[in-house]
């Protein structure tokens, strides 16, 4: 090696910024209504290099990808292609610029062959514009040979594994002469061997000079593949550093490093007996061996990244989904029959993740929504009247300080926060002993947010056992007496309030093998 005689300005040949980036995004801003998805995002992709984009849930990674794919147009900021300013009006425009996006789960035409999928809309033709199947077959074979994979171009796309589908998409990208390849969490649904093959394919592309953007929640993959690591937080660029100079701890700090003000008051409560106990709950391919308990008066936070299986566990407990094995005990009684109705009868309440689809019937009014769980309770001699519903609605609206015009106002006229209070009220009115709350404050303005937090805290104070799922770390840390962390369907940590910090939770949530990991007792 004659490295020592290399007097090139590039100190580290692989990771130094080499000239003009193929694609560069500068100070991108994008809002959806009141939500600021991107506020000052930067990104540079270089020829022959892999850049990893990491960040918490909601940091703006997906919005970045969609902006690059031409699905979203930025409100402000510049995009440069080979140093020249461009703007992607639509997906076609972005594709013509040589940008290809490989999604987590590609969409293919299942009844067409692999080769037909690759050359859809631009099949090689013979005379009289007949499709030249032989040429198509040959070209597909050649693409797969370059990528070093074996897929039969003449088989139907139906039944291909997700990993194979991604490879087909990559082959398609090469045939389109893509210079920039964006992979949005491609490994989320892959097995170990498949990940290795995807990495081999990616390195091949890299050697051919493609600029690759790789998004993943798994640090081992990020460090194995990337030359550069760009960290985003709250829609803004935090740092871009050579992967070789970074440690996992540092990346996590960059991802979460923000103030945790005492916005989330958890009042001290007396913690009582075990109210909900889950033992070895498993569902194939979704979650496995989930064991934990929640005690009366306790708030247990369930943290983890999107897709870790948190909501799925909650749905299984409440009886919405089935599970394969395990036990659920409610106050030492086995909750055997599986239906939301039985769970309700046993004293469970469930404020679901999707307020508009699962929590509320958006076409009905406030009163009908709030009393939907009270149909039996409010009936007298089997009859249910508007008056009974309105009376109950007024009572709960007063208790929860719901701001609504009248019980008969359409629920859609309420603000997100007040809608969420109606969902809370609908369950609190059933007099539950255990309340599962999935994303208590998603899409709620800051003011109402702390009100909801105060409410949950007060409820725990009255002896309610609360299992709170949240993607917002400050919420988890501020509210929980105990924190459970899930990663890929497993509980990877159980942390006491004092042990739980942004770093320990995030480390367990990303499955990183470093300090701070606790095994459940």
């Amino acid at each position, binding site marked *: 090696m004659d490295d020592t005689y290399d007097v090139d300005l590039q100190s580290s040949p692989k990771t130094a910024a080499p000239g003009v980036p193929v694609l560069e995004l500068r100070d991108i801003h994008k809002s959806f209504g009141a939500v600021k998805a991107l506020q000052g995002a930067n990104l540079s992709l270089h020829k022959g290099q892999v850049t990893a984009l990491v960040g918490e849930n909601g940091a703006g990674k997906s919005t970045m990808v969609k902006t690059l794919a031409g699905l979203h147009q930025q409100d402000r900021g510049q995009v440069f292609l080979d140093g020249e300013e461009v703007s992607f009006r639509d997906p076609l425009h972005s594709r013509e610029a040589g940008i290809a996006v490989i999604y987590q789960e590609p969409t293919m035409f299942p009844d067409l062959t692999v080769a037909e999928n690759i050359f859809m809309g631009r099949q090689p033709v013979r005379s009289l514009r007949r499709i030249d199947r032989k040429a198509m077959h040959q070209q597909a074979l050649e693409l797969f040979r370059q990528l070093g994979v074996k897929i039969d171009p003449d088989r139907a796309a139906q039944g291909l594994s997700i990993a194979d589908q991604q490879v087909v998409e990559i082959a398609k990208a090469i045939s389109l002469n893509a210079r920039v390849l964006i992979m949005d969490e491609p490994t989320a649904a892959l097995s170990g061997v498949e990940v290795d093959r995807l990495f081999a394919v990616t390195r091949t592309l890299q050697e051919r000079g493609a600029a690759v953007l790789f998004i993943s929640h798994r640090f081992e993959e990020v460090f194995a593949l990337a030359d550069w690591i760009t960290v985003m937080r709250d829609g803004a660029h935090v740092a871009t550093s050579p992967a070789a100079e970074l440690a996992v701890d540092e990346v996590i700090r960059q991802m979460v490093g923000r103030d945790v003000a005492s916005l989330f008051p958890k009042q001290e409560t007396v913690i009582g007996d075990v109210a909900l106990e889950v033992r070895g709950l498993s569902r194939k391919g979704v979650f496995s061996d989930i064991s934990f308990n929640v005690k009366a008066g306790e708030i247990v936070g369930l943290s983890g990244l999107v897709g870790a299986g948190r909501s799925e566990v909650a749905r299984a407990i409440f009886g919405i989904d089935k599970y394969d094995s395990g036990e659920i005990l409610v106050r030492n009684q086995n909750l055997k029959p599986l239906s939301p109705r039985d769970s309700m009868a046993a004293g469970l309440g469930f404020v679901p993740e999707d307020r508009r689809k699962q929590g509320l019937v*958006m*076409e009905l009014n406030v009163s009908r929504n709030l009393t939907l*769980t009270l*149909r039996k309770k409010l*009936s007298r001699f089997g009859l249910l009247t508007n008056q009974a519903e309105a009376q109950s609605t007024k009572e709960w609206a007063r208790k929860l300080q*719901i701001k*609504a*015009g009248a019980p008969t106002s359409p629920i859609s*006229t309420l603000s997100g926060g007040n809608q969420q209070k109606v969902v809370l009220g609908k369950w609190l009115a059933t007099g539950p002993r255990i309340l599962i709350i999935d994303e208590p404050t998603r899409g709620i303005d800051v003011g109402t947010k702390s009100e909801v937090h105060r409410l949950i805290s007060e409820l725990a104070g009255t002896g309610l056992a609360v299992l709170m799922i949240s993607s917002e770390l400050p919420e988890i840390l501020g509210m929980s007496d105990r924190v459970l962390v899930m990663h890929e369907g497993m509980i990877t940590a159980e942390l006491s309030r004092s042990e739980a910090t942004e770093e320990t939770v995030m480390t367990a949530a990303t499955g990183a093998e470093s300090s701070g990991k606790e095994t459940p007792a």
Partner: protein
Amino acid sequence: MLAESTRPVPVREAAPRLGFLRSWDTAIIIAVLLSIAVAAATVAGFASPRNAGFLLIDLIPILLLALPMTLIILTGEIDLSVASIAGFVSCVFGALWNAGLSLEVIVPLCLVLGAISGAVNGLLVSVLGLPSLAVTIGTLALYRGLAFVVLGDQAVTSFPRAITSGLQAKIGATGIPVWIIPVIILAIIFGIILHFTGFGRSLFAIGYSEEAARFAGIRVAQTKFWLFLVSGAVAALVGIWWTLRYGSARGDNATGLELSVIAAVLLGGVSIFGGKGNLPGVIAGVALLAILRNALQLASVPEDTLSMLTGGLLILAVVAPNAITWARTLSRHPRIT
């Protein structure tokens, strides 16, 4: 006011949807009154107690079937097999009568048969999760076929006159048939179930959002199963009625009646997409359809044309709400060209 409203909700926002519902109900009731007025003025013999009796008797099977159909359509499903179940039950009724069984035995048996036929629909829809449109279009053909299996192309007509004419009995000289009374009572019961019970509330919730209903602990599949079962039982009742009213049990009894029933329900303001509608509106829809058919029949309009009218009204009932919404948005946001 629920609580001190720091951010008052504009009341206007609530108005369009509710206002629209009200205006549709009003429109149907005006249409009923208008058609009565026009028919009375232009069609000879329409405004007579005798004709009123005919009209009401003809209205009975459609009204009966419209009751469970309203609940089913409100949950976002449909039952196209009702007329075929009625035909099937009619044939079984005839066969059992021929076998010498008494009415006290035949009627309960027929109701059970109808309930079972409906339960088959219900099982396929709720347990297997198949779309009711496909399931009941299949059983529409199936049950009609079974009707012909039971009686072939024969008819059983040996019912005693005392029973068949008894069905036509009138209350004094008013022309109002006696048997409309239990039907009205049944309609009131359905109205109470739909509008004043927790079960009724759950139907609206299912129709608008099955997922949200499930999350609120509503047993969606079970609910649908029972609705189809009841629909089958009511269809059996109509089969029995039809047989005795016309004094004839035949394979083709009540053929095509499902079209009139669905047209009446939709005319009554029930949304084909589920969730929206009320029973008084449906009764007005049934009345409108019956009045139009009766008046046109009196005016010697051929049956083919009447069938076109029913079909046309059905389309109108589906199109009109959408067209009105569309027109409203257009008037609110005029297009700039």
